[in-house]
Each structure stands twice: as structure tokens, then as C-alpha cells.
């Protein structure tokens, strides 16, 4: 298990390095001088000398490889640079933006899991074929609805027509609800889609029939046997959609005028604040990598077939395969 973790961790660091490098190449090595872009290109109120001074300040007068190595060195020490718009450290800006986004993302994820998972379970459980079909057609609809439109519709209904939740702002739990629902819609739809497909598959597995032959009720077969097996691919997808929640935050926070990582991304990209954008990219990659690492660690707990050897197994007989090929199993 330790070895497994070590390998996964090394892979995670590799992914982070790659994400950083790609964002560096895209943002710095493309034609167009970052500093001229920052200061409005050919505006005449900044003298070439001043521009050169700014470039020197940011180290942009150095050759690209040197810049890359320097920046990477700083990043490794936890210094992501400073914003070119307001001169504040990027780490501070990101650290301030994360909590509000984390709140709506976490609530959104919980809603997505509960509603998406619940929909999948109910849709595959109901006896009525037409009801099941109707429920199963909801997830594709959920994926297809544009978040900004859905968000605006929610505001229209629940802030203006029935003023239950505030339309904008960061104050209190009530301000979380509508953005979280907006975020949860595509995520939950994806989870529902995946889980219902897997459930329909596992319910037709021969071992499900074995359970039925034991006298197990439909509920028992569904929840105790099929669900745990069906949860495995869904877990992988859940790891992936958490990354999606961050990008969803850009639209959602813009629609609901909330401060947060999404808004910071939108404004930084708009202002071409390259160090901040890069800091956000790095942060998003870190979250993504950590979540998937967590999924990898959870997987063996759910699926015993993935578990690494922890204790010597007593005399495992070779597993016969249909082709008669010797099976490479056993020999603890």
C-alpha cells in the first residue's frame, strides 16, 4: 500500500509540473509581449524606458528558459509572484478566493451526489417502465441545459418572483443555495447518467440472479449487491467532475456576482493578469490531482480485486480461464 501511494504521489507531482509548464508555455512563449499587453499595447503615455524597467522587474528581459527555471524555483518555494493589476501576492489573492468557491462547490457536490445518485437508484428501481424511461431521460437533459441560463432562471424564480434566496452576494448560507444548485445540475446529471447505466448493467450480472435465487428482495439486490458494484465507475467520474466544478464556478459566480475563484479567473483573464491566471491554473491542477489521488486510495476499499498484497494469502489455486491459458494469479 505504501508503495502504491508513493507511485501515485510521484505521478501526481509529475502532473502538476506538466500543468505548470504547459501554462507557462502558453502564457509566456506565445507571440505578444506580456508587459505590452498588460499596459495596453501601443498606448503612448508609457515610455519605452518605463516598459523596459517593468520588464526587468518581472524578469521578462531574460531568455525564456531562464525565466522558466527562475519561476519554477520560486513556485517550489511557494511564491507565485504578484498580480500586475494591483501588485498583491498571487497566493493571497487565490487564498482569499478559495473559501467562497469551496463552499458552493462542496454544497454543489453534495447536492449532485444525493440528487444524481438518488435519481439513478430510483430510476432503475421503479417497476413502471414508462416512469423509469422518463427518469432516465432527465440526466441528458440536465447536461444539455446551459448553466448560465439555468442560473438566471433560478434567480428569476426564487429571488424575484418568490424572494426566498438572495440573487447576488456572499452573505450567509442562503446566498449559497442558488449557486450551488446551478453548479450541481450538470454534475449531478453526469453522476446520475453514469450510475444508472452501471446499475442497469450490474442488475443483469449473473451474480445478481444468484442473489435473487437466494430469495433476496428487489431492494436488497438493488442496494446491497448492485449498488456497490455500480458505484465503482461512478467514483471515477466523480473524481473527474470535481475538476468540472471549478470551471463551472466561473460561470456561476459571474451570474450570481459572487466573489470567488471563478470571478477571480474571469477578471484576471479579462485584465490579462498573467501571474494570477497561472496561479489559478496551478491551484486547479492541484485540486484535480488531489481528488484523483483520493479516488485512487478509495478504490481498493470499495473493490477488493484492486487491493495490493497486504497479508500473505493461503495457497491460492490458479484461476482457470476459458482459453486454458495458465492464470497468473496466486503464489503469495
Amino acid at each position, binding site marked *: 500500500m505504501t508503495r502504491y501511494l508513493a507511485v501515485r504521489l510521484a505521478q501526481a507531482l509529475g502532473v502538476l509540473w506538466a500543468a505548470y509548464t504547459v501554462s507557462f508555455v502558453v502564457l509566456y512563449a506565445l507571440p505578444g509581449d506580456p508587459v505590452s499587453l498588460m499596459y495596453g499595447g501601443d498606448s503612448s503615455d508609457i515610455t519605452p524606458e518605463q516598459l523596459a524597467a517593468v520588464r526587468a522587474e518581472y524578469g521578462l528581459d531574460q531568455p525564456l528558459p531562464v525565466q522558466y527555471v527562475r519561476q519554477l524555483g520560486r513556485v517550489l518555494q511557494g511564491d507565485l509572484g504578484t498580480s500586475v493589476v494591483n501588485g498583491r501576492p498571487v497566493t493571497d489573492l487565490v487564498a482569499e478566493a478559495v473559501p467562497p468557491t469551496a463552499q458552493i462547490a462542496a454544497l454543489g457536490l453534495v447536492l449532485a451526489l444525493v440528487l444524481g445518485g438518488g435519481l439513478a437508484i430510483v430510476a432503475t428501481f421503479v417497476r413502471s417502465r414508462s416512469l423509469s424511461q422518463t427518469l432516465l431521460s432527465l440526466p441528458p437533459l440536465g447536461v444539455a441545459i446551459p448553466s448560465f441560463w439555468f442560473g438566471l432562471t433560478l434567480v428569476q424564480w426564487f429571488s424575484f418572483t418568490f424572494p426566498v434566496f438572495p440573487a447576488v452576494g456572499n452573505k450567509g448560507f442562503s446566498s449559497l443555495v442558488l449557486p450551488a444548485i446551478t453548479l450541481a445540475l450538470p454534475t449531478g446529471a453526469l453522476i446520475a447518467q453514469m450510475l444508472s447505466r452501471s446499475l442497469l448493467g450490474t442488475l443483469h450480472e*449473473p451474480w445478481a440472479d444468484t442473489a435473487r435465487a437466494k430469495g433476496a428482495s428487489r431492494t*436488497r439486490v438493488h442496494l446491497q449487491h448492485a449498488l456497490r458494484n455500480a458505484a465503482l465507475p461512478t467514483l471515477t467520474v466523480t473524481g473527474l467532475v470535481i475538476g468540472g466544478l471549478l470551471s463551472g464556478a466561473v460561470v456561476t459566480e459571474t451570474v450570481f456576482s459572487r466573489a470567488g475563484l471563478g470571478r477571480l479567473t474571469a477578471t484576471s483573464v479579462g485584465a490579462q493578469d498573467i501571474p494570477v491566471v497561472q496561479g489559478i491554473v496551478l491551484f486547479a491542477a492541484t485540486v484535480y490531482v488531489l481528488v484523483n489521488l483520493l479516488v485512487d486510495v478509495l478504490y481498493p476499499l470499495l*473493490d477488493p480485486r484492486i487491493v495490493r498484497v497486504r497479508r500473505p494469502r493461503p495457497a491460492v*489455486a490458479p484461476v*482457470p480461464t476459458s482459453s486454458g*491459458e*495458465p492464470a497468473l494469479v496466486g503464489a503469495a
Partner: protein
Amino acid sequence: MTERLLTVTDLAVTYRTRHGDVRAVRDVSLHVDAGETVALVGESGSGKSTTAAAVVRLLADGARIERGTVDLLGHDVAHAAPRALKAVRGRLVGLVPQDPTVSLNPVQRIGAQVAEVLRIHGIAGRRGAEVAAVEALRAAGLPDPEVRARQYPHELSGGMRQRVLIAIALVAGPRLLVADEPTSALDVTVQRQILDHLETLTSGTGTGVLLITHDLGVAADRADRIVVMSQGRVVEQGTPDAVLGSPQDTYTRALLAAAPSLRGARTRPRTSPAAKAAPPDPVLEARHLVKDFALPRSAGGGRLRAVDDVSFALPRGRTLALVGESGSGKSTTARLALRLTDPTSGAVLVDGEDVTRTHGERLRALRRRMQVVYQNPYASLDPRWSVERIVTEPLRAFRVGDRTSRAARAAELLDVVALPASALRRRPAELSGGQRQRVAIARALALQPEVVVLDEPVSALDVSVQAQVLDLLAGLQADLGLSYLFISHDLAVVRQVAHDVAVLQRGRVVEQGDVEGVFASPQDEYTAELLSAIPGGRARTTVGGAR
């Protein structure tokens, strides 16, 4: 008068498909008494599995019981409400499913899966159920049941998993056991152990058994009565002696004639005594082949010797059978001989020439001389290609002929394997299993090879189709002078087609010689065990008398 456990009366089951209704079972009536084993025999599509599924009401989606009743100790299973059904399944009737490798929940411990039956029916509490589960596993003949109970299905072999399923079926003490081809996915020796054990377990308690099987040999050995089904109908039933000794129905007779375990007649061309005295030069030879596989680190690393010092010679125009159970290394040996994988040491010779290190263009040229027919004709043909395209693929790969001549060759090849020319435009899905295997054989013959490796060529086919394909192979050998390397786990089939046989166990050749000699007086203990495990032993004498 013994108690009647199961009465099926005028049962009819229909499957609703896109192409209209398929009547899988029509007017089937049968019964099982306490302590009795009734074998339901038939080929695929005969409706035997559907009948079994109807007895426990586990029919597939789209299947409907049209008519008839299934009476299980007074419970009307065919029309029971879900709640009533729950009380019957597991408690009154246990099911042993077909394929043990996919019939256990992969993420649940063995013990919990057995104990679940007792928990569902409220027979025992949590602790009690656990203890009872271990006992049931022990009774099913599983070694170290305490350890097994804590393991997961993937850690057990197929035979062990089938014992777990038997424990699940019997743990609640049902009166009737429905066993749907309980051993067809297992090796013959394991098959015999399991069936023996099942017999012991059920005879002691007076449990009735409905045994579904395609193997008349198994039925003859195990059943008190045999019910033969064909196309959804019962065509014959009676004691094994009556059904096998003097079959009344033409279908039963055909089935009997085709059953490899029961028929002694050989399909292979007889070799003249002169040829026997001086066998021709070997066209394919293996010398001291060894193949090691690295074990995955998760299994503790190390190496597994799959093939251990295997030598054999395949004389031109003859058939050499490599026989063994799962894991014996027979398929790996075949792959080595075909040069599809490289040996760790040893040599492969074709026509006396060492080809072990041949590669590139010369290896490609070698491929023309050796072709292969795989076990599963459902998997080895591209479903999107027409038969013509499949059969002519080797010709295109070697740029033999032009479009017209290839088309002509395809028609010729289909003729050789006795398929109608109209099959050229069809796709594999439109053909039956036997027809598909004929297509695979035609493809192997396209380049006029000298050696054909037949890797379990008939084990996925019904017995009557098996016999036809074996006859075809024998005819082709006589006409074209082909040499066959015949891989099989089925000694009954080997006896029919092979001239020579090599018995493999754990990667080693334990016995080698001509088929008559080895079968008549096996020198090795393992060979003897394999031979005695061929089902139908009880019946062979009966049938022999009738022949």
C-alpha cells in the same frame, strides 16, 4: 410413494424479441420426486435453461410464461407474487448457476454471501449465520472453509467458486436443487469431483435435483430419469437405460450418436499399417520448449513456468493432440509452436529447419504455412465483415491473386467446408455457431497451409454440431494432407480425432504416445485420472450393447 416436489404442467414460455415472439418452451411437463435426480438434456436453444429459469422464476427480461403451472410443494411459482416468491427461493429451491466465475458478487466476502441466505429467510442471526456458512462451505467440500469465508471470489479457482455456489444453494436446506449446467465451465476432473459431491450431499437429505445439461454422458452417469428436450418440447423421457439403451425419438438417437463421450467410433482417417510402422518426417517439431511468465508484483513477484521442457513431433498428415486441463500450458505451447510468442528456451522446427529465432519477412512467410482456428467462433470473426471478406483476408494480407481470383477462391473455400455460396454475403451474426466455425476453418485454409493449429475448435459448439465439424476436419485432413496440432481438454473428442496424444500437466508432458496405446493402458496416474473422469462411464456399456 415418495413425495412429489416439483410438477411442471404444460409450461410455455415466450421471448419477446425485435423480430417477433420466440416460443422457447412449448408444452413442457415434468416432475421431480424427493430424493430423485432428473436430468434435463438438450442442445442450445432446446429450451432446457428457460425451463430451469421458469422453475425459480428467474426468466430474462422479455420472457413471459404464456401457459402452464409450476407447482413446487404446493406453491404456484409461475404466478406467485414477489413476496411469495421470495419465501420459496433459497428456502425451498436452491439454484446452482452455470458459470461459477461470474455468479458470485465480486465485492463481497464468500462467507457473507453464503450467510446471506440464512439472514434473508430469518433462519439465523448474524453470528449464527456466519458459523453456519462456514459449515456449509465445509460440507460443500471446500478446504479451509474458515479462511475461504473471509476471502473474495476472485481469490478462488473456478471449482472452488462452484463449491461456494453449491453451499449457497444448499445452506438453507431446500427440498429441490436446480443445477443449470453446473460444471460445463470446469475441467473434467473438477467436474467429476463436484458432481460426485453434489450427489453425496443431496442423496443424504432426500433433496430432489433438476440437473440441466447438454452432456448426455453426465446425464447418464447422474440421473434417475432423463428428460430430453428439443425445440422447446420434451421429446423423450425415461430411465437412463431406456433413453440411452433404446431411444424412441429420432432426435434422441441423433444426440446419442453425436455425444463424443458416448461414441467410440472415430472420425479420423485410418492410417494404413505401413504408414504406422514408419511415421513420416515431422512437419512440426518442438524441442525442450520452456516458457516463463513474470508474475505480477501484487502476486508476490517471481516467475511462473507455464511450459516446462515440452517436446513433441507432429508427423505430416497426422493429428497430434495436446491434452490438459486449465493451466496445463497447452495453449501456451500452441502459441510457441505458432511463433506467436517466444520461448524462454528450446526450439521450434518446421520441416527440420530451426525457426525459433526467425523474424521479419521470413517469419511472415512461415505464417503462410501454419494457420490457426480458435475456440470461440463468436469472438474470432469480425462481426462487421462479410464472410467473403473474412475468408479472403489472409489472401489480401499476402497479396495473393486479384479481386476476381480471390472471390473465386472464397467460393471454393466455402464449398470445401460445406457452406452454401450464399453465405459469402452474410455477416457472422447471421450464422450459427457451427457455421461460424466452418468460416474460421475456411479462413485458416485460404493460404493452403501445411499445419493447422486447432485450439479447442469444437468446445464452444453443441454436440451434434461438434460431430459435424470433427467429421469435416477429418475429411479435410484426408483430402489435403493437413497436419493438425489439436488442443483440447476433452479426451472424448481427442479419442475421436487424434492419432497421437501428449498429456500435459502443469506445463510438463506426463505421457505421450499413440492414442490407442495411451487410452487403452495409461502409464501415468494423471492420464488415468483424466480418462476416468470422462462422463458417460456408466452408460458406455449400455450403449455399447445397443450398438
